[in-house]
């Protein structure tokens, strides 16, 4: 199974949100990383065929998804960034409604819904109205509905936003198990989510693909370019003007900072082991921007 985008472009008036993106997705987990406004959500919406591209196409095994239509949607699971729901529906009823939309047999749907509610930890509130759910609970419902039809292609937009650390770990584990024979594409700002489960990371900036590689190879990009320094406030302000700054940790009267730079920024810095976050800072700029 191969999902491809061929020179996919989307323009909103003068602004080009996605600029000639060509990618190939096969089995595994793909992380879509990029700053706000990079075009991640727009790209995802074109992948799930709710937003028509200005040019280019999305194909599944060589067949445009527009032609496939319902056949494509039958193997698709999508979780948008903003999850729409019906406030007066209970969790169970909402999933039943979606299972009908996904063309599932009612008996099968019943079993599947119970399994998924258990999986996302909402079994004890299944008869509670969605209007009474917290933000994190709604996101978990969003994950559950995306998995209803046991999709072969799973596209998740900011799936872990609003989830507590335990829930995020649980979610990562679910995705890891699912990714064996599926295409999973997830976009997130939480680099640690992508770091632990994504086989490939796609870096998107201003609608263009900057890089697409494994996390290991991307880390190598910034090997020898990550530095740890201890500075005061004045020094920090000066450094921000010249270098991308990663993590800033305040300690008593000084700051412990991570600087990402091709050359050694200061004399009294120590080299650090690079992380995916440092790649993010290196490619997209840290506090400098």
């Amino acid at each position, binding site marked *: 199974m191969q999902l491809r985008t061929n020179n996919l472009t989307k323009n909103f008036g003068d602004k080009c949100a996605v600029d000639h993106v060509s990618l190939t997705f096969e089995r595994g987990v793909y992380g879509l990383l990029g700053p706000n406004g990079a075009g991640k959500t727009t790209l995802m919406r074109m992948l799930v065929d709710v937003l028509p591209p200005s040019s280019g196409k999305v194909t599944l095994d060589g067949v445009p998804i527009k032609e496939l239509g319902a056949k494509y949607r039958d193997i698709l699971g999508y979780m948008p960034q903003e999850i729409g729901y019906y406030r007066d529906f209970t969790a169970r009823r909402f999933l039943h409604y979606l299972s009908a*939309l996904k063309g599932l047999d009612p008996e099968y749907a019943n079993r599947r819904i119970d399994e998924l509610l258990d999986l996302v930890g909402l079994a004890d509130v299944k008869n509670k109205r969605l209007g009474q759910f917290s933000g994190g609970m709604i996101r978990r419902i969003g994950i559950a509905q995306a998995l209803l039809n046991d999709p072969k292609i799973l596209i998740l937009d900011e799936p872990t936003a609003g989830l507590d650390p335990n829930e995020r770990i649980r979610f990562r584990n679910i995705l890891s198990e699912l990714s064996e024979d599926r295409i999973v594409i997830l976009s997130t700002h939480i680099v640690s989510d992508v770091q632990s489960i994504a086989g490939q990371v796609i870096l998107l900036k201003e609608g263009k693909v900057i890089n697409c590689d494994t996390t290991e190879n991307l880390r190598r990009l910034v090997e020898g370019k990550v530095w740890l320094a201890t500075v005061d406030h004045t020094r920090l302000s000066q450094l921000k003007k010249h270098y991308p700054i990663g993590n800033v940790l305040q300690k008593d009267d000084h700051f412990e900072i991570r600087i990402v730079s091709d050359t050694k920024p200061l004399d009294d810095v120590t080299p650090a082991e690079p992380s995916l976050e440092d790649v993010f800072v290196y490619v997209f700029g840290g506090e400098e921007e």
Partner: protein
Amino acid sequence: MNNKRGSRGYLLRTQLRALVTDRGTLYIFLAYIVFAFGACFSGNFRDTWMKVINGDIFATLTNLYMPFFLMAAILLVISPIFAGDKKSGMEEIGDTCFYGKHAWKVCKVQAAFLYIFVMCSAGYVFTLFMSLFSKTPPNFTQRVFEFGNSGVVMTNAQFYLFSFVLQYIGLLFLTSIVLAASSKSDDPIIPLAVGACLCGFELAFDFVVFSPILWEFNLFRLLKPFTILVPTTLFTSPLKAILAVASTFMVFTALLVWVTLNGALKEEPKPQLDLAQH
């Protein structure tokens, strides 16, 4: 795990259930219960608030008052059917499902029409039961309605059935207008306002004869079926009036449904799928 295929019928039933169990349906039905109770059991209430047709409470309620409650149900419950999903973001999720996009749209239209049928039927059945226990229960075999020069002769039972059919055609038209407005807007308030406007002006044209054509081809001629049986300047025969008015509204209904679906019938999901084998 077997991914068993569910039918379009199941989706339709689910959609219909969502409409019938909507809070708006409940509140409007409750309001009608209170009104009908007052009409059937309180002489004071009847004298103050109602004009009774030929002493027949059942015909009065179903011909003069129940349509307004059904119109309120259409405006409140059907308006968000498309626009509400767009506003809440539900449309984006639904459109990525197997029965999403076109099939879902078609299903919503079917469910809306079925909903009106269910509501109309429930209204008739409920009113029948209420009026049976009232002081003036309906007598189906009698012929209470004599329509002057029209020569129309029908028993009460025939008249009630005739009323149901005509009212359903009228309510379908209103539903189709609200559906069309809802499908083209992203705020449920717009189809509500459009529907309310239509009802308001049809009512005005019904009360005052500004134009014979607008008075004749009026939604309330269908919603108050006893009025269509009286000969007028335009239609000397009630049969001609019924055929002309009903068919005109049915044509408009079909047109509005086409506007709503707007090419939705091109793509239909097929039961056999190759990709599910991957």
